[in-house]
Structures are given as structure tokens and as C-alpha cells.
């Protein structure tokens, strides 16, 4: 038998070698392969030193407490549909104004000295964090609604399209201001969100079940809902730190 390969030794270690008895016999008589085997065992022992933070027996209940409101919200959305989202229309307009103010402060600061009480950069960043967080939440609800749309053929997504259309200009503003603030991670998620919203806007208003499934799959493949939640969660953690911390 020629010398054992690393692959053979790895499979042997994990009990998946094709002929473990032959490998064992070889190791007994070959010091070179025995040394390689020993090195691998040391590596695997080192891997076992990876410490995992402990979670108490109550952890599952804690996860459920955090999870439940999101499941309930989905159920409410399914029941109330767009009535709920419509009440947020005013928030959209306010948020756009906030970003416009942010951008104005950022771009004009150096050329036009303010007379009194300029907004501190940290305060502007905080305002933007809140505004982007709100935008992400509204976008998340649109995507949730689409992903959880009840089966039917055809499926009317005209409401989702209307809301996606309203979210798009805001999204561009936020993406621009996040990029300007050096928050590449946020800008990238907003960029992906923008593509998703565009896709919804440009789809037919009446979708077949297969067409909806394809959109769903693309939303899931991009992991956009997950990314929105991660960014939103980072924002809550970082707030009121400057936005640049979210790069």
C-alpha cells in the first residue's frame, strides 16, 4: 500500500473510510503516515477548543418572546392587508424630508456657514438612522406581504406595486446618503432592495401562481428580508452612534 493521502486520513478520522482496517494496519507500520495522522488529530483537537457561548435553559423561551411579535405581525398583515400599511403614508413623506435635510446639511455645510444652531453631525446621523430604519421596516412589510400572499391564480399585486413605487424614490435618497456617509453595508442592502422593488414595480399587476413563486424565490435567494433585518438590528445596536459605524 502506498502512503495514505490526507483525504484518506480525514475520512478515517471521521469513521467514513472505505477500508478502515487496511488504514489502521498501514498506520501501524508506516511512521510517515502515522506522523501525518498524529498532526491531523492535533488539528481536530484544536478545533474542539472553539468555545461556544452558553445559553441557559430559558433560551428557547427568550427566542420565542422575540419571535412571536413578528409572527403575529405577519398574521395581522395577512388579515388587515394594506389598510395597515396605508396609515404609514405620512411617515414616508416625513422620512423623505428628513433625508433631504440630512443631505442638505452634509453637502452645503462646507460652503454655507450657518448662523446659529447648526445640527451636529452625530444628530444628523441619528436622524438618518431613524429614517432609514423606518424605511426598511415599511419595505420589509411590502416584501412580507408579497412573500406571504395567499395562493390564487391570478394573484393581484397592484397594491404591493403601488407601495413599491412610493418606496423607490426614498430608497434612492437613503442609498445615496448612506454611501456618502461611508456606510457601504447599508448602501449595498438598499441597492439590493431597490432592485427588488423595481422588479415588483415592473411585474404585471396580475401574476400567475408560478410567476409569483419566481418572484418569491428571487426575494429569498437574495436574502433581502434577512439582510434588512440584520441591518435594522445593527442600527438599533449602533444608535445613536454615527452611521459610519455601519460600514
Amino acid at each position, binding site marked *: 500500500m502506498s502512503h495514505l493521502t490526507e483525504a484518506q486520513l480525514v475520512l478515517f478520522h471521521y469513521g467514513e473510510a472505505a477500508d478502515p482496517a487496511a488504514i489502521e494496519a498501514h498506520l501501524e507500520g508506516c511512521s510517515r503516515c502515522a506522523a501525518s495522522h498524529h498532526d491531523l488529530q492535533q488539528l481536530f483537537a484544536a*478545533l474542539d477548543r472553539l468555545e461556544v457561548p452558553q445559553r441557559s435553559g430559558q433560551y428557547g423561551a427568550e427566542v420565542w418572546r422575540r419571535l412571536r411579535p413578528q409572527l403575529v405581525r405577519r398574521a395581522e398583515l395577512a388579515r388587515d392587508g394594506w389598510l395597515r400599511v396605508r396609515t404609514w403614508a405620512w411617515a414616508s413623506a416625513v422620512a423623505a424630508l428628513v433625508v433631504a435635510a440630512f443631505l442638505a446639511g452634509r453637502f452645503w455645510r462646507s460652503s454655507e456657514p450657518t448662523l446659529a444652531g447648526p445640527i451636529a453631525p452625530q444628530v444628523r446621523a441619528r436622524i438618518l438612522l431613524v429614517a432609514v430604519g423606518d424605511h426598511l421596516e415599511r419595505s420589509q412589510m411590502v416584501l412580507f406581504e408579497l412573500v406571504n400572499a395567499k395562493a390564487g391564480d391570478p394573484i393581484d399585486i397592484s397594491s404591493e406595486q403601488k407601495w413599491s413605487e412610493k418606496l423607490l424614490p426614498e430608497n434612492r435618497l437613503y442609498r445615496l446618503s448612506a454611501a456618502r456617509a461611508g456606510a457601504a453595508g447599508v448602501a449595498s442592502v438598499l441597492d439590493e432592495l431597490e432592485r427588488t422593488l423595481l422588479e415588483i414595480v415592473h411585474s404585471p399587476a396580475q401574476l400567475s401562481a408560478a410567476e409569483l413563486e419566481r418572484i418569491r424565490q428571487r426575494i429569498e435567494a437574495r436574502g433581502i428580508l434577512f439582510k434588512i433585518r440584520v441591518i435594522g438590528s445593527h442600527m438599533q445596536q449602533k444608535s445613536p452612534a454615527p452611521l459610519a459605524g455601519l460600514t
Partner: protein
Amino acid sequence: MGGSDAAAVAETLAGDEEAFAGLVERHSRNLFRLAYRMTGNEHDAEEVVQETFLRAYRRLDQFKAQASVGTWLYSIAINCARDLLQQQKKHQEHRELESPERPSALEREAAGEPLPDRLALSAELSRQVALALRRLTSKERAALVLRHFEGLSIEEIGRTLGLRPSATKNSIFRAVRKLRRVLGPLAPLARTTP
């Protein structure tokens, strides 16, 4: 456990949302452990656990009764963690990677310098393992974590990751080769630290 999991799935699908709580309570700790080994970060691991249950809830009607709920949740969690790792890699968020100019306590010990406190050394070894794991691709990492830490067979890993057995093996081999390069000089210390 398997029976009560299946019952919880059926009850949730029948409209009893609270039944889903049972699944969350039974599987959260295992999923956290898996997610932490995949992400190497407590906060990210928490996110993965939560997203796993959200995706599971949404796709509950796609769950095949012949599989175990635990295995199904594992495959969702692995996909969530891989999404997260790929996203982070895309934006080069490996901020915590140690600067190569600064020798770590383990490297100093390996070089024969005076020993720091043994517990600190042990913690550092854990940190070095975590950093080494972050150098793997998400597929390599998933395959290795499932094989080494979770004890899944090559066949089971292949099913979870959607890979053929040969591709699964290759992912594990590549992972081991990379880890050997990074951790090789430090590995002997694993048996001398507490």
C-alpha cells in the same frame, strides 16, 4: 421528541400558533450552537436563529414528515448562516481579523517565549480557531461544522447542502487543508492548554 415535533408542526399548520413555541423552545439552543460555529459571532448567531424560525414558520407547509424537524431546521439555519457569511464577505466585514504584524499569545508560545496565563492561552486558542474558520468559504465551513461538530455523515451533509457526496468530501478536505495551513503550528498546543 420527534413525535412531539411532528405534532407541533401539524398543530401550527392547523392554526395554533402557540404550538410553534414548542419547536422554538426545543431547538433554539442547538441552533444557536450551530449558528455560532458557522458565524463565529454571538450577535450574528442570534440573528441566524431568529431568521431560521421565521423561514421555517413561513415554509412549514413544505416540511416533509419523513424528515426530522431538527434536521430540517438545521438545513434552514445553515442556509441562513451562509447567506449572512456571503453578505459579510462581500462587504469585507472581517474587521476582527487580527493584524498579521502583531504576534498572538499562541504564536509567542509556539516561538518559545514565556508562557502567558494558561487560561488566557486557552481562550486565545479558541479565538484563533474562530479566526481560522472565518477564512473558509461558507460551503467549506458548513461542511466542516456539520461533520466535525455536529457529527453528520457525508451523505447527510450532502443532503443538507444540496451537494453530491464527492463535492461534500472535497469541501471538507479543502477546509481541513486550509485549517492545517493556518492552525498547523499552533495545533500541538491544543493538548497542552487546559
